[in-house]
């Protein structure tokens, strides 16, 4: 079931983390922003991986929760003042969680291709709701003029306006998400959702009300997608309905494919590869007019990557660093 990364994989992960942590010291604001996007999208992809890779629920509407929390920040930000992180962040995540609960309660009853279609349908519904209602600022999107701050009483401890500080805040959120999801996967709950992915019918026969566990997983995933969406909105201080759209959901799936489903940290590699390649494919100096159609290049790249690596970057990494470590129940001292 869940296998902790072996020592060498952990070493590689720490190296990547160190590399990410050193990005602000390059002093290049373009790359700092790019790296911020990578980290935030990695959180988003990781939250989806809980569903796809560990619960067996292939959601094609995960951006809905990402986008809703992004709008949460926009709606909670006073026009000429900063929203308080301590309020806006939990409230935005709670919004994502609540909607995930409502949608999940319906969609989790379906299976396979129907699940894919129904999650997509609900996400598109929310997309149109946001786009067409004046309350959300319409199809042109809306600005967050002042970035949120961490404020206790009257004292501002920290502002997301500070690019470097914001970057490290995102990095902490990524590590927090990863660690928390690993803890959850190793818990009794984690065992159950992995069992559901493997054989839901037998789980029911063994006495598990699988509906409830799938719903809980859906809500947890939606909540973390909300964390990512909130941070994403704070990068540019701008939200648009596209954040809830199927493109955004599809991108997260591509990141998981690239990174390799079956490991949580694969999402980080997927996000790095995806954002990095997107940036390269959009380069007119390299690809000329094709750069305007970078999605085609990305499609070819993902297909090639999946064909070559099969289990994604993480799968390759795990093979390269040696065999899997013993699994959960064999390592009682872990």
């Amino acid at each position, binding site marked *: 079931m869940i296998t902790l990364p072996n020592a060498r994989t952990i070493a590689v992960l720490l190296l990547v983390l160190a590399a990410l942590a050193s990005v602000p010291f390059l002093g290049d604001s373009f790359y700092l922003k790019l790296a911020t996007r990578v980290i935030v999208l990695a959180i988003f992809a990781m939250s989806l991986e809980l569903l796809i890779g560990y619960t067996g629920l292939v959601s094609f509407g995960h951006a809905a929760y990402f986008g809703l929390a992004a709008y949460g920040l926009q709606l909670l930000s006073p026009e000429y003042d900063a929203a308080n992180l301590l309020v806006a962040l939990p409230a935005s995540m709670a919004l994502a969680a609540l909607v995930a609960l409502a949608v999940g309660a319906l969609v989790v009853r379906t299976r396979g291709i129907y699940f894919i279609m129904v999650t997509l349908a609900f996400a598109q519904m929310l997309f149109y709701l946001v786009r067409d209602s004046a309350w959300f600022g319409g199809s042109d999107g809306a600005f967050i003029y002042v970035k949120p701050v961490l404020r206790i009483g009257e004292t501002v401890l920290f502002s997301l306006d500070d690019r470097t500080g914001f970057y490290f805040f995102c990095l902490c959120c990524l590590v927090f998400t990863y660690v928390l999801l690993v803890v959850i996967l*190793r818990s009794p*709950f984690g065992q159950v959702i992995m*069992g559901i992915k493997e054989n839901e019918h037998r789980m029911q*026969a*063994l*006495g*598990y009300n699988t509906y409830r566990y799938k719903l809980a997983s859906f809500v947890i995933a939606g909540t973390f997608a909300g964390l990512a969406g909130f941070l994403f909105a704070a990068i540019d201080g701008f939200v648009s309905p596209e954040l809830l759209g199927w493109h955004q959901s599809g991108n997260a799936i591509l990141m998981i494919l690239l990174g390799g489903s079956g490991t949580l940290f694969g999402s980080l590699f997927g996000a790095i590869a995806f954002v990095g390649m997107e940036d390269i494919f959009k380069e007119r100096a390299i690809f000329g007019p094709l750069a305007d159609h970078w999605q085609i290049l990305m499609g070819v790249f993902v297909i090639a990557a999946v064909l070559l690596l099969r289990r994604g970057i993480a799968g390759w990494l795990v093979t390269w660093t040696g065999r899997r470590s013993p699994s959960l*129940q064999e390592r009682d001292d872990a």
Partner: protein
Amino acid sequence: MREPLLETLELTRRFGGLAAVKSVSIAFAPGEVHAVIGPNGAGKTTLINLLSGDLPPTSGRILFKGQEIAGRPAHSISHLGIGRSYQKTNIFLNFTTRQNCWLAAQSRLPTSFRFFSPAHRRQDVAARADKALALTGLEARAGRLAKEMSHGEQRQLEIAMMLATEPELLLLDEPMAGMGAEESERTVELIRKLAADHTVVLIEHDMDAVFKLADRLTVMVNGEVLETGTPESIRTSPAVREAYLGEEEALS
């Protein structure tokens, strides 16, 4: 007969036009091994599916300890103390043998909505899983992936998972199907041992095993009960002989 532990009353299940189980009324007495036999397609597996909640009945009643359970979902029936094994092996192929039993054993926790404590620290779950492995002789295979085991071992695992949920009533759907002679023999011994403190509903084509184990027999043909009785009365029943046993020459 004592108050039955499990009882079906006019139980019927249709698949479109076909009545796979037709007005079946059987009483299963506590502590007994009650075998249900019948030719292929008689409706034995369908009956088990109704009893375990895998399928809802079209009509009729199922009473467990006098309580109506027809139409309840499988997970809820499992928690009443009714465990089942499948004729068509239904295990977690990509998990190890022990993980298979672990998930079965963990189902007896009051809840698995525990998100932060490591699962493997649960000694009570581990003990239940290990006990099931020991009973079925699979300890040496604990670390093996289920899909890498022999068919016979997978059949043992099928039983082990059921046992790890600590049921009081066992619904065994052809536990010996596809086992070698030696494994079959071991499984007969295991069922005999379990029969000491469990009630068993046994479906089995192997007549030697059935007559070794059963306290009572029900013969089903075409979804209907042909006859219920002691092994001796079934063995000598002309109707049963004609409809079923005669063809197989199992008891000449």
